[in-house]
Each structure stands twice: as structure tokens, then as C-alpha cells.
């Protein structure tokens, strides 16, 4: 019988991240389907607040690695904590959220445990009495269902793929797992965080709408001149009014990197597609973007898609969007902003 370890780091306040609660929900459902034992394991500077979030999960044990050494996301100490928790749990399966912190260490930990790893899982399944998962290959171009025989098997579940677990009842008591940290594991010091160069935070993973600006915003307009400043005002005005998350095509952020007069708030972090992000939003609106395949693969998890483009034969019109408005995005977005301002 499998022993499934739900593994997560805690946030600075000691609670689980939202993606952690989703992974816990998935681990719990898989344990029930496989009639496996569920164990919870958390690590961080503080872990006690997470205990109440594990209430009612059905975990047979709740393990913790706690201390100042585990406050920051650092490979040496995070890998040591995850390895210790997996060993203490006797885990054959480890289910964890695909956060940047766990994505940094999961494969290394799998190697140390003599196991295997799969990341970016989108669903966990029980197939003929054994665990399986689905994940995408070739940048969201094809989806596979797979399983493995090697154990332990570490699985990172992408955010937004399973409902978050809702705790109920009393918090389990945490069983502390000791981890000795050597100086060699402290060679890296986390100094802090830096926001991207922008007037406002434009990346909002929880937004209902993804707004994508393509390179067309910086091209010459009907009067023969580019209007990057107007484009900036329109885009930032729309983001402020709609609370949308801002994405971009590669061509536009590359222009920024090459020092052209472009949208100053745009960085590679906004990039969607083959070499960018694949965010999850219920709706997406593309403007001045041609909708070519390397970009559109980043839209795999955007459900409803509309585009504004002057070209009726753009990629979006070839089955990649639900609606394509053949129109000037400058004019359309000015009117959209005016309507939103009235609301």
C-alpha cells in the first residue's frame, strides 16, 4: 500500500500557500481512491499555523521541519527539509504544489531519495489501483497520462488544477522532524525580493482576465508614426479599471530588451508563450498580437478568448480565439476604458 506524503513549505506567517491547499486536496483524494495512507509534512520558519489548515485532511501523521534556517527559499536547506520529511513519512508518493520554492528542489530531492519526479502535473488519478498523472509536453502542445514504477515518486501539481482543501475540526499536533543544517547549506543567503520595473504591479495570477498586448501597439499607426505613449496610457488605464493581468508576446518584450522606444512597464516576466508563462485565467483578450502558434501555446489554460486585430486573417481568426474583432485596438480600448470609467 502506498504512503502518500503531502509536502509543502509554509508562508512567512506559517500558513500554507493557496497552491498548497490545492495539492493537499488532490493528495487526499488520491489517498482515498487508492486506499493509501496520507501523511502531511510542512516546513518553514513557522509551521504551527499550518496545523489548523490540515484539520480534517485524514492525515495519519502531521510532520514539520521548523526553524529560522527554513525561513527563506534556498536550495540547500529546503532540499534537506523535504528529504527529511519524505524519509520520516516513509513516503512512496510525494504530492506537493508547483510553487517556485518546491520547483527549485523537487528533482534534487527525488535524486537523493533514489526516486523519480514529475512536475507540472495537472491531475492525479488512480488507474487500475495505482497512481497516475496527466501533464503537458512540448509547451502545452500535447497531453499525456503516465505512471511510474519507481518509488518514491515526487509529483508537483500545478496551481489551479484542483479545488483547495477546506479544513474542518481540530488541528492535528505536529511531530517535529529534526534536520541538522551545516554551514555549507548556508552558503546562499536570500537578500530579499525585487518587483519588476513597472509603475504598477501588472502580473496578477488570480485575475479573471488576461490582457495581452502585442507588438502592434508600438508600430506606426494610420498617421505614419508610432504612439507608444498613448499605448501605455490605454493599457495601464485598462489594467487599472479591469484589474486584469498583463501579458505580452515575445516580440514586444524583445523590443523592450533591445532598447527601443516601447512600453516601459513591459518586461520578460510578462511574456506568454513558448518561452514565457502559461497562466491560468478564465478569460483572455489579445490586442495587436498576431496569435501565432509559439505565442498561443501560452494560452492553453485560458478558457474564453477574444482578440482585437486589424488583420482578419491573423492567427486568432484561424480557430485560436472565440471572437476576433477586426478593428483598431487604440480606438477600441479607448472606448472600453471610457465605458469602464462610467461603471
Amino acid at each position, binding site marked *: 500500500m502506498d504512503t502518500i506524503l503531502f509536502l509543502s513549505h509554509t508562508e512567512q506567517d506559517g500558513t500554507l500557500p493557496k497552491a498548497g491547499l490545492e495539492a493537499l486536496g488532490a493528495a487526499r483524494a488520491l489517498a482515498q481512491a487508492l486506499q493509501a495512507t496520507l501523511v502531511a509534512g510542512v516546513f518553514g520558519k513557522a509551521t504551527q499555523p499550518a496545523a489548523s489548515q490540515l484539520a480534517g485532511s485524514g492525515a495519519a501523521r502531521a510532520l514539520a521541519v521548523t526553524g529560522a534556517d527554513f525561513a527563506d527559499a534556498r536550495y540547500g536547506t529546503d532540499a534537506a527539509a523535504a528529504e527529511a520529511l519524505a524519509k520520516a513519512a516513509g513516503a512512496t508518493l510525494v504530492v506537493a504544489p508547483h510553487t*517556485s520554492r518546491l520547483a527549485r528542489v523537487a528533482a534534487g530531492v527525488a535524486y537523493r531519495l533514489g526516486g523519480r519526479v514529475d512536475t507540472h502535473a495537472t491531475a492525479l488519478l488512480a488507474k487500475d489501483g495505482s497512481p497516475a498523472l496527466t501533464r503537458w*509536453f512540448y509547451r502545452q502542445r500535447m497531453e499525456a497520462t*503516465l*505512471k511510474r514504477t519507481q518509488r518514491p515518486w515526487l509529483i508537483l501539481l500545478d496551481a489551479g488544477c484542483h479545488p483547495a482543501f477546506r479544513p474542518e475540526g481540530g488541528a492535528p499536533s505536529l511531530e517535529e522532524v529534526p534536520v541538522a543544517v551545516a554551514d555549507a547549506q548556508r552558503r546562499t*543567503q536570500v537578500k530579499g525580493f525585487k518587483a519588476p520595473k513597472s509603475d504598477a504591479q501588472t502580473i496578477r495570477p488570480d485575475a479573471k482576465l488576461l490582457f495581452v498586448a502585442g507588438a502592434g501597439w508600438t508600430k506606426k499607426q494610420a498617421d505614419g508614426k508610432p504612439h507608444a505613449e498613448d499605448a501605455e496610457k490605454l493599457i495601464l488605464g485598462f489594467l487599472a479599471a479591469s484589474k486584469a493581468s498583463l501579458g505580452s508576446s515575445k516580440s514586444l518584450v524583445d523590443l523592450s530588451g533591445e532598447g527601443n522606444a516601447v512600453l516601459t512597464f513591459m518586461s520578460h516576466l510578462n511574456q506568454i508563450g513558448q518561452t514565457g508563462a502559461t497562466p491560468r485565467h478564465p478569460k483572455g483578450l489579445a490586442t495587436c498580437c498576431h496569435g501565432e502558434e509559439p505565442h498561443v501555446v501560452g494560452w492553453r489554460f485560458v478558457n474564453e478568448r477574444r482578440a482585437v486585430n486589424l488583420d482578419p486573417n491573423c492567427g486568432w481568426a484561424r480557430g485560436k480565439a472565440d471572437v476576433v474583432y477586426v478593428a483598431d485596438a487604440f480606438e477600441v480600448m479607448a472606448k472600453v476604458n471610457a465605458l469602464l470609467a462610467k461603471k
Partner: protein
Amino acid sequence: MGGYQIVVCGSIVPDPLQTLEPVTGPVGPALKNELMLPAVLDPWAGHALFEAAHLASKTPGSKVWLVSLGPKAKLQQVMMAVGQKVPFELVAVDGPAGGFLDGHETAAALADAVKAIPGIDRARLLVFGGWESASRGAGATLQMLGERLEIRDQFQGVDQISPQPDGSLEIMERVEGGQHQVSLVASPPALLGWATGSLPEPRNNPQVGMANMKAIMPALQKAKPAKIGVGDIQYLAVTLPKAQRETRVVKNMPTDEIAREIVEWISKD
């Protein structure tokens, strides 16, 4: 210090403009006409290579190796283009490079290749690569390579590295919410999985190309074969996503009307 020894690991992937279709191969899933598809250097590995060359150019005594595992003929084709960009010494490993293969086996082959580079000094070693490939997209191979090389200072989603006067390295990694985590590692060795970095793709430089080509062909000729498979993975299904959407192309609609429709749409739950 005599500069950095920067080992960049990067393989090849199908050109992103190609249509990809899964088929069942002898050892598991593969791509239809995989050997016929034009290939490019994996994009994030490409950024890693350009950042490595930039760092080496600013640090006298540094050297860049590109360790690349792929079918020899495909590697030759891709290196003809990549070799024009920045100076590096190729270490080729002849083996399959598809997305359905097991990263565990790939990491083992890469570790053997890195360990076999003459004169590697851990005190100067930086291992670079893309933080995820455009084929498997797991972000796992590089970490396992690091473990095999006993490098325990690892960073993923890196956009910047800045050497400090005391020999330490400041590194910016992508984290959630469009932010970067800023860390300081005391010294090499370190392993960095690069995101896009901050450099544009270098222009072709014929002089660099000539210098690289002298070593690329011999490196390809002596490429060691590596047997890479799917390991313990059992693929139950590999499918393409659902067919195209029914697109409504709206022409000649007044701008006011389009704006009203968009606002209604985004306001609806």
C-alpha cells in the same frame, strides 16, 4: 581567481513553428517525423548560453563549454547556426533528445560528460542551463545534474547574475507574482537554470563562427553515444488538445459596439 569555468547544458527542440503530432515509437511516445523536423537550440538554454558568454567576456580567464545531448546529425545542423553567435567549446553527446524521455537518464549522461571535461575546477565552476526545456518542460534534469555533481547551491528561473567584488555572486530568480528573489551565493560552484535573462540574441559574428567551427566538427566526431530511454515511465495516453475553436470574425462593427460587447463580456462572471 582565474575566471569562471561555465558549463552550459542545452539540447535541441523542434522549431516552435512546426506542427507536432505524437506517434508511438519503439520505446514509447515520439513525434511524427521527429528526425525530419527542423531543430533549434532549446530557447531557455540559448539564453543561458548567451548569458554565459556575456559573463565570460567580462571576466578575464573565463571559458564557456556547451554540453549538448542530441542526435549527432541534428546537433551539427543546429551548431552551424548557434556557433555564429558566441564563443564556446562544444561537448557533444550522441543520443535522443525528445520530450518523452526520462530526465533522470539524461542527467546521468550529462553528468558523465561534464565530469570528463579536462581541467574542471569546482572552485571556478558555474553550471548553466535553461530552467525548463521546450520539450519535456519539467525543470528537473538540471537539478539532478547538480546533485550528481554535488552542487548544492542551485537557482532556477534566473534572470540575472552579478559578480560581487568579494567573489560572491548575486542572483535574481523568478518567483510568484512577477517578482524576483535576490540571493547571494558565497562563491562557485553553483548551478543556474536560466529564464530569459536580460540580453537580446547576439548577432551572427563570422569571426566567432570561424573560431567555433574549428572545434565543433571534431567535437561532433568524437561524441560519445548515450543510451537514453523512458526509464520507468509507462505512458497510458498521449493526445493532442481539442480541435480548433469556432471563431466568430467580427468585421465592420462600429467601435462603440465592439467596446460595449467587450465590456459586457469581461463583466460577466
